[in-house]
């Protein structure tokens, strides 16, 4: 029987990971909302409860014309967005061959942001430059997740990440 282990060609898989408190769920939310505004079928996984007390946190985003599972299978992530160097070993197996690993820009990203709370927004900015979404969809997503009070500074951080030049594989 013909069995396709890999996802349908048009499904994009993104794995976000780090430790509790780094804003990983917010990062994946921005990305999932932008995909929704682009008209995709979106699924996203989250962790709540015990795992959020500083433990490892993972959130997967998948979008395309039809998505079933909210989880990215091992070896099929198109993008890995890692927020914590020590989590990289654990998360690396998700990446597919030829997938883009944003971990290489974690160090520069930490230097680029003045406040560590901005790391998530910055990394989403870096990711955004590699996804085929309109800038307007990203802006709408940022407006949806951030309070008016902190929206402006986050847009600034996002744009900085989006325009930063990183040579990623």
């Amino acid at each position: 029987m013909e069995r396709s282990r890999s996802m349908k060609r048009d499904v994009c898989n993104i794995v976000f990971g780090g430790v509790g408190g780094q804003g990983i769920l917010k990062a994946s939310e921005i990305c999932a909302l932008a995909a929704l505004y682009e008209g995709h079928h979106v699924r996203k996984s989250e962790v709540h409860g015990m795992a959020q007390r500083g433990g490892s946190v993972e959130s997967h985003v998948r979008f395309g014309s039809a998505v079933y599972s909210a989880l990215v299978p091992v070896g099929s992530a198109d993008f890995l967005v890692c927020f914590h160097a020590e989590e990289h070993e654990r998360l690396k197996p998700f990446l597919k061959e030829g997938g883009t690993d944003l971990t290489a820009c974690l160090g520069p990203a930490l230097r680029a942001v003045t406040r560590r709370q901005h790391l998530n927004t910055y990394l989403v900015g870096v990711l955004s430059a590699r996804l085929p979404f309109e800038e307007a969809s990203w802006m709408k997503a940022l407006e949806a997740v951030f309070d008016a009070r902190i929206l402006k500074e986050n847009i600034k951080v996002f744009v900085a990440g989006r325009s930063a030049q990183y040579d990623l594989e």
Partner: protein
Amino acid sequence: MRMLLSGNEAVAQGAWEAGVSVACAYPGTPSTEIVENLARYPEVDAQWSVNEKVAFEVAFGAAMGGKRSLFACKHVGLNVAMDPLMTVSYTGISGGFVVVVCDDPQMHSSQNEQDSRWMGIFAKVPMLEPAGPREALAFVKEAFEISEAYDTPVLLRMTTRVSHSKEDVEVGGRVEVETRPLCRDVSKYVMVPRNARGRHAAVEERMRKLEALAERIECNRVEDGDGELGFVTAGAAYNYVKEAYPEAAVLKLGMAYPFCDEKIAAFARTVKQVVVVEELDPFIEEHLKALGIAAKAKDRSFRLGELGTESVQDIVERREKRPTQATGHKPSFCAGCPHRFAFWVLKKMKVYVAGDIGCYALASLPPLSSLHACVCMGTGVTLVEGIGRAQPDEPLVGVLGDSTFVHSGITGLINAAYNKAKGVVIVLDNSITAMTGGQQNPATGLTIRNEPTKKLDLEAVCRSCGADNVDVIDHRDIRAFEALVKRRVGEKALSVIIARSPCKMIDRSRSAMPAYEKDLCKRCGVCVQIDCPALTAAEDGSISIDGALCVGCNLCTEVCPFGAIKKHEA
């Protein structure tokens, strides 16, 4: 309009659209956000109840009173509400009544991995099982219809991956439902033996009708395939099957119970090999066996934990489950968490500590390693009594939270007093239900909508339950706290110590970070033992404090024997 909703948000939205009027729950991961979200709709009378039994009964009372109502809980919460569920199956409802139960395969945040699908069989009530947020919204609406059409509570079974995954969902408007009149039918609602016998017969008749419904209900859906493999699957497992074998035929059981026997048999005839793919227990597998349908089922090793897309081929090829990946960072108390102070003292005292469910279960992990038992809500009291009866000379204390004390600690305390037990119970009153993300409870004086309400007086309750001593202390003064616990443990009395200090999720105040004086540090490692996320030790034993995480609680300055960590002087 399309919105990105979690499974729990979709249940709330669907229930609201279906005209639900009353919603009750006690917080529990992964179910918490259902009633939390229902409280955001002004038309819904939502509440955090004292515990799941109370929540179930209040919601059922509202259904009996003629309104559509909903009760939500995690799997172990349904255990607490089993008593009313078993008999409400007999009484039936009036207004539609939906019971949402969220299982936690893989135990992301739970003490066991029970499969609540058995509750459908056990309680003789129908159960629907969505595979994602879109279905969750549709199924909860369908559940209300079934409830009223068949005069039965309806179980909606979710799992963590359904509750806590998000999907774009088309949302609609609310349809108001008329309140039904209160019915005084004694033979239906007074469950004494004479009436209950009649109702049991009605339940069996209802099951027969529901079995017929299962054959025609749309959510039991056949998706045609190439005729080779035919998967019988349900819930999140369906998603993994579709990912792994997109060309195969699938019978998706949206109604987990009762089964659609004829549909299953007909489906089996259309494919060469039937394969059952389901998480946890062999619920569908055993039913197919009983029907005499030859089906390939998973290896026993797959009864543990979750499935994933990767699991499906292994199940088809009858392989064992692969070992799960490394777990990564372990969780710990937040920086500045008052629990850290309490468990540091208990660790130093080397007492046996019996606990219950809450953030403080994290104290069992090294390096704090100062919690020795945790079973369910309330065991912070009852185990102290029980262990004390077996080991009268062992120094021991019980710990529980403000929320779990109200949930089921009070009855244990009354029991201990009544049965002349001695011992020490510490109520870690952080004025919130913390582990589930910060919900109100009767001891906080605020409702689910953060409106002021009558505040439970914990001290007065403990006294009237029969505690000999009730002390209140801010245990961040670790010397005073240690002296108090030592004194009470040494006495032959029933004592409650209310250790009161707010959760750091409520009290976000910060003080200046202490200063580390490397020259004074003897590399003894004591400060590392408090397991503070802001404090890390280098290879050489020297430490560093992370200014972004530190909230200036100064426990590290208290525990350092050499004065190498100094409180910031203003």
